[in-house]
């Protein structure tokens, strides 16, 4: 039962990533693209942790933590670039 739920969650997050790629490709503004890329980071973190549950290994938590940090910093840096024209003033 839990394996079926796990694979359903994989399916949902895979479809969510495909929708995010669609938004990245077809959005009309750069703000939507940044938002879709940030959502992609969060969905990828969920996929990594689901993979860790599937293989019963705690290795992927460090990967997910680093990925969350890199995603946050890149999103904030891009928004800062859109707002001010440079990142570190």
């Amino acid at each position: 039962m839990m394996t079926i739920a796990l694979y359903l969650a994989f399916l949902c997050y895979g479809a969510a990533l495909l929708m995010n790629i669609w938004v990245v490709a077809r959005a009309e503004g750069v703000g939507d693209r940044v938002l879709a890329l940030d959502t992609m980071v969060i969905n990828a973190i969920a996929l990594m942790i689901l993979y860790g549950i599937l293989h019963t290994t705690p290795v992927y938590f460090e990967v997910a933590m680093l990925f969350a940090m890199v995603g946050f910093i890149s999103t904030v840096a891009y928004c800062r670039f859109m707002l001010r024209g440079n990142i570190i003033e």
Partner: protein
Amino acid sequence: MSILGEIIVSILLLAAGFFGLVGSYGLIKLDQPMTRLHAPTKATTLGVGSVLIASMLYFLFFAEGITFHELMISLFLFVTAPVVAHFIAKAQLHRNWKPGDLPAPGGRAKSWSVYDQADEPAADDTARDPAKPGE
């Protein structure tokens, strides 16, 4: 005990998949940029939080014991998601909105801080100037 853990983990995983799908579908479905900001930052954070709780309970019930890495990840995501949403909203105000389209801010500020120029001092600095007490 084992079957109970399996049921709880399964429900959490299904809820997580549902919220992740709803958050990403809302990004396509909603029609304005500011409302589009709403769906991913709430629903996807809730979905990934459910995945992390399911992972904690799975390692508690079926593996060597409870782990606390997930709490760190979920705390980090819950702290950074509003910051990211605020930054994207500011960037969209800066790019797509004119100052006349917005209601005026309260207090002593002249305008929203997004529209301040870099060389001109912000309105808060004069308000807190110690040379003019009582202003």
